[in-house]
């Protein structure tokens, strides 16, 4: 993490005017005004914004009339402690004219004698409603709990970080209840030689909680990198906490982030990460509680991340989680629409990385989690080569080094991953799990269990294809697990997937698995494990599920397959090395009857075909008390079970009669009239609810 501004406003800059104590005042500025001791009224506005700001007391507002102001300003009250509001005259949240312009040309732009930001906004102050452009070292700098809202920010550049906006919390914060907000701005055509083409956020906390909200901004065609491999072509966020009691929270919601670029180092020595957004926890110390949420579970909180590019990894988003002992770090990427991005080496849509520190010598553990959930990933590209890891939609990598089990969670769930492509591995997703129980080869080992959970995801119409037609693998997903050392386990737990209509040149079109068991310094071997359950693998152009040529199942390379449906894959449904036999372990081979949205029909044999030991989760009643196969299984969107009480394949009057005769009967205390088949909602009695389920499906049938 780079820090570029010291959060100390000089007294000389701020103490020009002592306003009268009392009610907040509004000081007016106009290009026709005159700076004077008495200026600031409508008949006699001030001429320059800085002069008016210097007159302001904490809580005052400075309103600026339309016009162009060639100033580079410090936004803070001229005296006292607190914030000031700087806005265009008549500001309202819907204003769209942006006719009040702050222009750094010739004053602080890159060509000027003193390149710098056009506006530096100090703790608890606000700047809103301006066009702000031509900053020579960022356009706007925020220091502390500032509000930067509804501005049009453009044409900024910096030889360091944050071409459009640079925000630093940390030591600039004074009010524990305050938060920094960057909202509703348009940021375009800015460049940073290092990180954060549009926006760089140093969200550190040291004694005062840091809360940063980045909401509703439109961030387009910004560029970062070149001097080094960039973090964040559009947005770069680093959280940090100086001690175990510090808290840093960042939310990135409802932004539209398009056409931004993260460049590799010109020297070729460093890769770029995150064409649209880059996020990392533990920027320096990382000792406390840190969380970053990109999107969210509430409607309207997801970001639109489209058409961004990284010359390295993570065309749309790149996240990096590295908790240290004692820390609690979490990154959530949820509910975003991530489309048409390109990660040139890997991770066209998302690149997610986590690593668990060696904890053998540490007194305390840590808690870390990465959750990538409910995103739509479509049309992303990972045009990497044979030495890259691909992942047209997602490239995820999780490493644990002598880290006790259960301290780091990595879940990828409920995502729709469709029509992405790669020229290397994993058209839809490429997942890598690595565990080592003896990373320093010192012979001191510890149980280490690294796992990625990959559940409820739809992988459809993804492509792994390269020009040679010989090396791209895993049209739906490529998964690599490696465990080093006898106490290390690396696992990939696949469950409730729908893998359909994916394509590859050779080999595995649905799921491609590689697994490695390697030795530690004690010459003991690790256990690599892959499971697949409650899933549908259908109509892929190649082998449905297969292993790399050098992979042969055994005690240290185990593959557990159960309660899946695989059919119609042109290269065969299962790699023969997996030894899967239809009819055993709940594995079936039937047409799942998917519609064009990959939802099973009401009569699909995948309904209620899941592992009886798997809870039905959120499946709505009637759910047959057994989970469905595929990506909708266990969710509220799961296809409901036809309430065919008498089992004749149709829901009609006979089913009503079956309920009628048991109506009112309970299972406890036992009633001879009670019928489990009639108790559609499984609540132990036959009542109107059961009848209503039949009524809801009355007349429907499955042949």
């Amino acid at each position, binding site marked *: 993490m780079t820090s570029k501004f010291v959060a100390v406003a000089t007294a000389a800059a701020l103490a020009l005017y002592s306003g009268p104590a009392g009610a907040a005042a509004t000081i007016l500025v106009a290009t026709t005004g005159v700076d004077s001791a008495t200026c600031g009224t409508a008949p006699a506005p001030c001429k320059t914004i800085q002069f008016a700001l210097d007159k302001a007391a904490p809580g005052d507002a400075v309103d600026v009339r339309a016009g162009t102001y060639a100033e580079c300003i410090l936004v803070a009250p001229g005296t006292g402690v607190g914030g000031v509001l700087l806005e265009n005259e008549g500001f309202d949240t819907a204003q769209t004219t942006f006719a009040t312009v702050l222009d750094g040309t010739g004053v602080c732009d890159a060509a000027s004698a003193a390149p710098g930001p056009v506006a530096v906004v100090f703790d608890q102050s606000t700047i809103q409603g301006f066009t702000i452009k031509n900053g020579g070292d960022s356009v706007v700098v925020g220091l502390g709990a500032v509000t930067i809202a509804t501005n049009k920010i453009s044409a900024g550049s910096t030889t360091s970080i944050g071409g459009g906006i640079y925000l630093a919390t940390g030591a600039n914060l004074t009010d524990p209840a305050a938060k920094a907000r960057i909202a509703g701005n348009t940021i375009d055509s800015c460049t940073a030689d290092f990180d954060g083409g549009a926006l760089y956020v140093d969200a550190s906390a040291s004694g005062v909680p840091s809360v940063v909200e980045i909401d509703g901004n439109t961030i387009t065609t910004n560029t970062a990198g070149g001097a080094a491999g960039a973090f964040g072509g559009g947005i770069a966020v680093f959280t940090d906490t100086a001690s175990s009691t510090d808290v840093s929270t960042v939310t990135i919601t409802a932004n539209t982030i398009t056409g931004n670029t993260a460049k590799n180092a010109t020297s070729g020595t460093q890769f770029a990460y995150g064409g649209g957004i880059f996020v990392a926890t533990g920027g320096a110390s990382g000792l406390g509680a840190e969380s970053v949420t990109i999107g969210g579970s509430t409607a309207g909180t997801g970001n639109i991340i489209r058409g961004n590019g990284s010359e390295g990894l993570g065309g749309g988003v790149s996240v990096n989680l590295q908790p240290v002992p004692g820390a609690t770090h979490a990154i959530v990427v949820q509910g975003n629409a991530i489309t048409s991005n390109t990660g040139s080496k890997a991770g066209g849509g998302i690149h997610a990385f986590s690593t668990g520190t060696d904890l053998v010598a540490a007194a305390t553990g840590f808690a870390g989690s990465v959750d990538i959930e409910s995103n739509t990933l479509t049309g992303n590209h990972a045009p990497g080569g044979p030495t890259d890891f691909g992942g047209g939609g997602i490239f995820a990598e999780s490493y644990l080094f002598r880290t006790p089990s259960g301290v780091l969670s990595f879940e990828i769930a409920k995502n729709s991953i469709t029509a992405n492509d790669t020229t290397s591995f994993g058209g839809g997703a490429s997942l890598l799990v690595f565990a080592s129980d003896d990373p320093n080869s010192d012979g001191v080992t510890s149980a280490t269990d690294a796992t990625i959970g990959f559940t409820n995801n739809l992988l459809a119409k993804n492509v792994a294809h390269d020009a040679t037609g010989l090396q791209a693998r895993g049209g739906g997903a490529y998964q690599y697990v490696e465990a080093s050392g006898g106490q290390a386990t690396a696992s990939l737990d696949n469950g409730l997937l729908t893998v359909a209509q994916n394509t590859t040149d050779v080999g595995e079109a649905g799921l491609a698995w590689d697994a490695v068991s390697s030795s530690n310094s004690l010459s003991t071997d690790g256990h690599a494990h892959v499971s697949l359950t409650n899933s549908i693998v259908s109509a892929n152009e190649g082998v449905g599920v297969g292993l790399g040529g050098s992979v042969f199942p055994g005690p240290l390379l185990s593959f557990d397959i159960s309660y899946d449906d695989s059919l119609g894959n042109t290269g065969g449904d299962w790699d023969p090395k997996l030894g899967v036999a239809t009819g055993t372990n709940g594995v079936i081979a039937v047409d799942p009857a998917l519609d064009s949205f990959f939802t099973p029909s009401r009569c699909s044999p995948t309904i209620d075909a899941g592992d009886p030991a798997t809870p039905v989760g959120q499946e709505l009643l009637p759910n047959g008390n057994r989970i469905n196969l595929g990506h909708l299984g266990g969710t509220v969107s799961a296809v409901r079970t036809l309430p065919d*009480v*008498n089992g*004749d394949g*149709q829901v*009609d*009057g*006979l*089913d*009503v*009669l*079956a*309920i*009628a*005769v*048991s*109506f*009112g*009967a309970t299972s406890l205390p036992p009633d*001879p*009239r009670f*019928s489990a*088949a*009639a108790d559609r909602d499984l609540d132990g009695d036959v*009542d*109107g*609810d059961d*009848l*209503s389920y039949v*009524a809801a499906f*009355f*007349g*429907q*049938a499955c042949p």
Partner: protein
Amino acid sequence: MTPSCFPIRVVAAIAAAAISLAVPACSGSSSPTSSGPVAHFTPDTPTPADGSITMLAGSSVGTAISIRVTVTKVNTFFGAAFRVHYDPTSLLFRGIDTSSSFLTQGVTPGDVDFQADAASVGGEVIVVATRLNPTVAPPVDVTATSDLLTLQFQARKAIAAGAAGGLLSFDDPKQVCDGTVVPSGCGSIAVTWSAGSVTAH
């Protein structure tokens, strides 16, 4: 332009103890009193036999025609489920009327359930008429000919006597339930089923 027809579904909302009956399937241009053919129903068995479920003629107004589904001398009658096959190009199913059903006598509305669905299977009305919970609403000994419910149709066009377009029949699966619990659902009572045909001119 012909107005859209919504699926016909008459559902008793038991929890609310409210039963919706005889919901018209369509409204608008097809008024039962409009000019056009006049419909009549002719039962196959005008005098129902003991132990039977029989269609008999009800009221008829212009093209609208009501057909009584009756039960004759069946003991321990708890409910019935059946399908009625018809030609949807000749006849339009408009709903059911249960206001005179013997099943509703002496019990509360929440103790009975009537459903009719003509939307799911073309040319078939799926019907159920039953009491609920035999310990509260016991089976009925039907000692004469009693109305179970009334089917309401409308002729779409002229139908000659004996024409296929006017034929009505009971289709499988159909069952009369005696209120006992058996593995398949409800104990059955053997009855004879007799339908009839519609003419319109």
